[in-house]
């Protein structure tokens, strides 16, 4: 048995702000997202290449359209592309339009990457009672929007969907700490505390990073901290980073839904 962990990236650029403000009015502190386009995302990819970590990138169509070379680079470097909705819509409030929006986003992302995504993470963190059923119909195999467990589980609260849930953890998400404007060292201490305990409790750590400069790790100094964290996870805990699709399929096939995944 080896232990697995997930390194995931929520590709947020101007999209969160553009959901409520016209894009041509995004300047200054409403335009932190542009940092992700200019340097944040390529630096994050450089760091993943240096460390040899395969990652799962959740791409909203809005950002994929604006960063074609970067999404192509993600693919070329062996990372997984999963869906992060269309344009930071709140699935919980879409009502009858939800299926149509999810389908359009699915088709567009498939056209951009050439392969249908099989994983989904809600762009705003919220879902409707219909979301999982729609994803199942579109061929998705896993969701990673919930924060209600430490290990993967089968999504079947309404009806068997065939989807595996890969829950994430707020303490293992950069935005949780940097939204509070913690220093890097404090954020690192929070990460380490959560990560060590999660692995100790046989959970499946699901790290989330953003390429932005404000809530994310696009800045060089913060990426250095993430590199130390990756090194610690591998060396101290003997953990191997896997793609979400690998862990979801393995979990479904073997029925082993804990953090210990057969190699």
């Amino acid at each position, binding site marked *: 048995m080896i232990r697995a962990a997930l390194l995931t990236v929520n590709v947020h650029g101007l999209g969160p702000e553009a959901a409520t403000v016209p894009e*041509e*009015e995004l*300047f*200054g*502190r*409403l*335009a*932190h*997202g*542009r*940092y992700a386009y*200019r*340097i944040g995302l390529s630096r994050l990819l450089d760091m993943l290449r240096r460390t040899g970590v395969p990652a799962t990138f959740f791409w909203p169509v809005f950002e994929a359209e604006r960063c074609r070379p970067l999404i192509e680079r993600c693919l070329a470097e062996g990372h997984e592309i999963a869906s992060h909705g269309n344009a930071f819509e709140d699935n919980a409030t879409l009502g009858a339009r939800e299926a149509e929006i999810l389908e359009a986003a699915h088709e567009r992302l498939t056209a951009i990457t050439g392969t249908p995504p099989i994983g989904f993470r809600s762009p705003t963190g919220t879902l409707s009672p219909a979301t999982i059923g729609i994803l199942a119909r579109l061929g998705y195999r896993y969701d990673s929007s919930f924060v209600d467990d430490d290990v993967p589980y089968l999504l079947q609260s309404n009806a068997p969907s065939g989807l595996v849930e890969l829950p994430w953890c707020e303490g293992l998400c950069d935005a949780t700490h*940097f939204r*509070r*404007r*913690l*220093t*890097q*060292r*404090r954020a690192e201490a929070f990460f380490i505390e959560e990560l060590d305990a999660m692995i100790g409790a046989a959970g499946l750590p699901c790290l989330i990073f953003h390429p932005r*400069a*404000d809530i994310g790790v696009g*800045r*060089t*100094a*913060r990426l*250095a901290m993430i590199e130390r964290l990756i090194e610690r996870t591998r060396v101290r805990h003997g953990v191997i980073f896997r793609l979400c699709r690998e862990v979801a399929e393995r979990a479904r096939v073997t029925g082993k839904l804990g953090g210990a995944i057969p190699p």
Partner: protein
Amino acid sequence: MVTSTSWDLGEREPELLEKTHCILTDLTGVAPVGWCSPSGRKSRLTIPTLRRLGYRYDASEKDDDLPYVLDDRAGGLADFVILPNNTVSLDDYPFYHTGQALASEVLENWIEEFEALRTSDGYVHLTVHPMAGSGSGTPARAAAVDAFLSHVSNTSGVQIVTLAELAEHCLDRPQEWRARP
């Protein structure tokens, strides 16, 4: 300069910018060449107005670690440069006000930023506030600024310049300071 905390000045923005520009010029005897939004926000009218008033740089964007010269509508490069600031981790206010950090932790973070930028492509643009509440005005926090400046000054190959000097440096060789694609 402009003391409003939001940036919804509407069509009156050019008039208000001109008014504050004149007040500051009268008070100091020198027309300012740089501007930084008090709220971190701008509108589509801001840069055209600043350029009309003779400004050379804006320090309100947060979208790069390097200065970049604006593209002109005519297709060339403008005589105006963006000097992005970092109000996230090279600033005192967010760490003290929101992050509840000690001055020693803030100093450590600034030094980490400085050292990281020194080995990649970027410049250090530190913002400090003179107030006591969430700024660097108190003795412990002023000492952190002092220690940071000592660290920078004692590093070889580093020069501390004013924003106006940096702006002129970039505008003297605009081709070298084009925006990243």
